[in-house]
């Protein structure tokens, strides 16, 4: 009989639990910088007068200062965020001065003896007052069960938000709870299959959601925003798995070559692009979820090589050139979309027709119509050996450097390498060179060098640097 009551109690508990899915509509907006806006619409039961309403199943990392609750005919008195968690130690601590039931178990007979006890202290060990005697709990190591009557009000299994309100009349009404939380993030992942025979790529784009907020968002309408709104205090704990931050080092080989100027049909919010998910989805805790957003075929791509010598220096051994793939995100002859920041993985089919991974590259938010030139790795067979042949001091602030670059190609077809000499600081000029260079900037000179199949090409240049 007692059991039946208990069972009814559970089911009732499940039904009364304000988190149940049937009358709850969640929408989650996720930004790139480990930030999400959660809008939680649920039916709440409001009595007349002052009362406390608990919201369970909110993000475990909720930023309580950003919470706002709105519903018809209520006035909000105060809002509390209880993060004191229910643990055995806390339970015992809150029971200081209170009565608990202890059950002693006789180790020889198994017989149970029940006694009422008062908890006096929990400093290091638990001290109990039983009748007129004082005892340390389980000081003798014998089994003693401690039974508490109730859980203190503000101890929870999970951090819980509660709001005190005054209802003007009783009844069920729709409430909207919205808050910001870290722990949810997204980035884009691209898969590019390069076809060597016709120089084209097929690109698939996936958005990858990660949830480490400690809570599952059931059946949520999800909107992804390609943007990182600034946050004052960085907002909550850092999420290791969030989208890549803006690349600081523009010296990385391969990046955005030419920013695009085309507009697409994607929705925007201010200057952020929006990527709504077509269907409601459940974002489980500790889950990585991927949804497709881009699928284009046969986009022309160019395969090339690039080598950067960072300063006018010598390398002891030949260094491999970078393999570069360039393509456009333009509407014609390109991907035809804005690309949210993420990682682009390149694949290529091997002799047997199985796609093999050939490297990956990170991209920033990229407008439509841009030209991207991405490095996938180092070429095994194409190497550059940069050598300082001679460095002469012309005067105190005037140096002359004779550079020699030996480009080798062990592949059976000729290649073109973009050879770039960087670090031309001060007033640097090219005094002599074996082939014409272009000056990409005051800081760098670039040659386009053709290296024959199984052959070698040498480029020489003399730089004069004044400072």
């Amino acid at each position, binding site marked *: 009989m007692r059991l039946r009551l208990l069972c009814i109690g559970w089911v009732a508990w499940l039904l009364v639990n304000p988190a149940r899915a049937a009358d709850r509509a969640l929408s989650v907006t996720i930004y790139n910088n480990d930030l999400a806006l959660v809008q939680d619409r649920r039916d709440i039961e409001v009595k007349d007068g002052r009362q406390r309403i608990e919201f369970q199943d909110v993000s475990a990392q909720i930023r309580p200062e950003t919470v706002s609750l709105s519903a018809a005919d209520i006035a909000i008195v105060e809002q509390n965020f209880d993060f004191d968690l229910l643990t055995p130690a806390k*339970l015992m601590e809150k029971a200081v001065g209170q009565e608990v039931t202890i059950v002693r178990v006789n180790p020889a007979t198994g017989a149970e003896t029940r006694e009422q006890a008062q908890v006096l202290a929990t400093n290091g060990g638990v001290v109990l007052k039983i009748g007129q005697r004082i005892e340390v709990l389980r000081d003798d190591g014998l089994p003693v069960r*401690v039974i508490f009557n109730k859980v203190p009000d503000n101890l929870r299994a999970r951090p819980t938000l509660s709001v005190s309100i005054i209802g003007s009349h009783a009844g069920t009404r729709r409430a909207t709870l919205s808050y910001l939380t870290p722990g949810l993030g997204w980035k884009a992942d691209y898969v590019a299959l390069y076809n060597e025979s016709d120089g084209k790529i097929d690109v698939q784009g996936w958005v990858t959601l990660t949830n480490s907020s400690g809570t599952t968002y059931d059946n949520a309408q999800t909107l992804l925003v390609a943007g990182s709104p600034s946050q004052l205090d960085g907002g909550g704990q850092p999420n290791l798995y969030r989208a890549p931050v803006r690349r600081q080092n523009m010296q990385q080989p391969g990046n955005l070559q030419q920013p695009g100027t085309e507009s697409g049909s994607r929705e925007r919010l201010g200057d952020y692009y929006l990527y709504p998910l077509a269907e409601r989805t459940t974002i489980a805790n500790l889950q990585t979820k991927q949804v497709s957003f881009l699928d284009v075929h046969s986009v022309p791509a160019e395969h090339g090589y690039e080598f950067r010598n960072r300063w006018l220096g010598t390398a002891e051994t030949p260094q491999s050139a970078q393999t570069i793939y360039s393509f456009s995100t333009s509407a014609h002859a390109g991907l035809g979309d804005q690309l949210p920041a993420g990682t682009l993985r390149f694949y290529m089919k091997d002799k047997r027709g199985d796609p093999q991974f*050939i490297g990956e590259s990170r991209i920033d938010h990229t407008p439509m119509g841009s030209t991207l030139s991405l490095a996938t790795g180092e070429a095994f067979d194409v190497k550059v050996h940069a050598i300082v042949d001679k460095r002469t001091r012309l005067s105190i602030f005037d140096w002359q450097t004779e550079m020699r670059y030996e480009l080798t190609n062990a592949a059976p077809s000729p290649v073109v390498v973009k050879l770039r000499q960087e670090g031309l600081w001060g007033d640097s000029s090219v005094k002599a060179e074996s082939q014409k260079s272009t000056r990409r900037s005051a800081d760098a000179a670039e040659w386009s060098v053709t290296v024959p199949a199984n052959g070698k090409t040498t480029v020489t240049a003399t730089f004069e640097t004044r400072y």
Partner: protein
Amino acid sequence: MRAYPLLGLCLIAASGIAHGAAAEVLAEPPSDLIVTVYRAPYRDAGSIDLNYLNGFALVTDTRLVRLPAGVSRVRFEGVADGIEPSSALITGLPGRVIEKNRDARLLNPSALIASAVGKPVELLRTNRKAGTTQRLPGKILSDAQGGVVFETVEGIEALRCSGLPETFSFESLAGLSARPTLSVEVQSPVAVTEEVTLSYLARGFDWAADYTATLSQDGAQLDLGAWVTLANSNGVGFPAAHVQMVAGKVNRENGQVEPIDIGGRILARCWPRGSTSDQPPVILREEAMNRMFKMSVAAPAPAAMSLAQVVVTGSRVQQEQLGDLKLYRVPERTALASRQSKQVRLMDQLGIPVNTIYGADLAAGASESGSTGPAHRWLRTKNTRANHLGLPLPSGSVAVFGSYNGERLLQHESGLRDIAVDEDVEIDLGESSDVQVSAKSEKTSVDSSHAKLLPIVPGVALRSVKVDDIESIEVSNARAAEIDFDLRLSLPEGARIVRADHPLGAKNGRPIFRFKVPGNQTVAVRFQTQSIGDGILRTP
């Protein structure tokens, strides 16, 4: 006992509230497996470290999937635990892929308790004396911070604080899977059975080439053999797989990977349990343990492990070009088992002509004056067909063996970088104490007749003068045979050698003297360098 059917009923009632609509479909185990192993991207040379495999692999498996019409959730069980979920690709599924998911939570005791918080469970408590077990329906109230609080009809208690044997019995797995699982939600208009290919990148693999070089008796020829050593530190094995290796440096964005949640231990932490005989710093010890626990949770990756077996196979790998990379195929299907390292023959090249070179690389100038040290020794050849090589040499380690009375003896072990065809190959042989190099600065002279003065402020000027150094470097050979010696110098910026008693060459832009040192003799090289020295000078 009569209570059980009732309990079951109310559980069905409870679970019915929670569940969605998509049909669960379990993909068959892989029928075909391809594993392509990539090296640790930032290792230039050297062998793999079995305790920390920094490379990765592209795993492609083919599985049979039986899809019903409508929306279903296809589960691919047993993917590598080092999977990078965002790299997963699924091809061949009919209909529309709605989404793909990877749950990091695996079936483990703490995940079971975490997913049962607030849900009905059974508490099992055994009477040690009588041996009877009492089953009590209850509810877990909290599992926060490693402690478990539960409620039964008797009241609220904490797990394993009483000293009695007690545990929970759970009703369901709460959707937790035992093995790393990837799931795909897909919508198919009709029921079909289809071969589906799943591919993903996974961490916890690595490979390197391990060369053994055997010098002939006269030291003029080398036999070079090599193994490909590859290893898998994942908890998942790949039976009957096509195994391949890729050489060449592949770009990797070293982003964090969402790790598998292997679950913490259930600590069942209680209230303070100090007794009258305890020493005070109990709390500190508890904190230390908490820290240890956190550390062990923070490093879940497939890092530390001991590899149980090393398997050596007989056939040779086949090389082909993959874009700008080199692909090596193991010719037969093979098993790449969990926590296993495997070796496959890469090459056996015999009779490669080599030169043994002694040498030293010294900084010219007073800094090394008076110093004496052993010379370096290495083998030099060129990676050409004429030299019985002429094939790409992937990076790894080289162990050089010499022979002594017909026995092989290890001489030196060193790393080797990626070497393309037609490149120079240099194999380090370490130092030779028989050949010693001593440097001596003989004379420094300042030519103040050509001094230049650059006034900076009145009374102070920068003075530049020509500085000439005469140095000599002696190379002594305690061996009976004549040796080839490469003496390489690094000069201060702007300095040059103006005179020398040996012919002067250049290597990589730096001066080099190449000469022979006859057996049991000493050769001295004298040279004069000229540079411009600056100094601040007070002018009257």
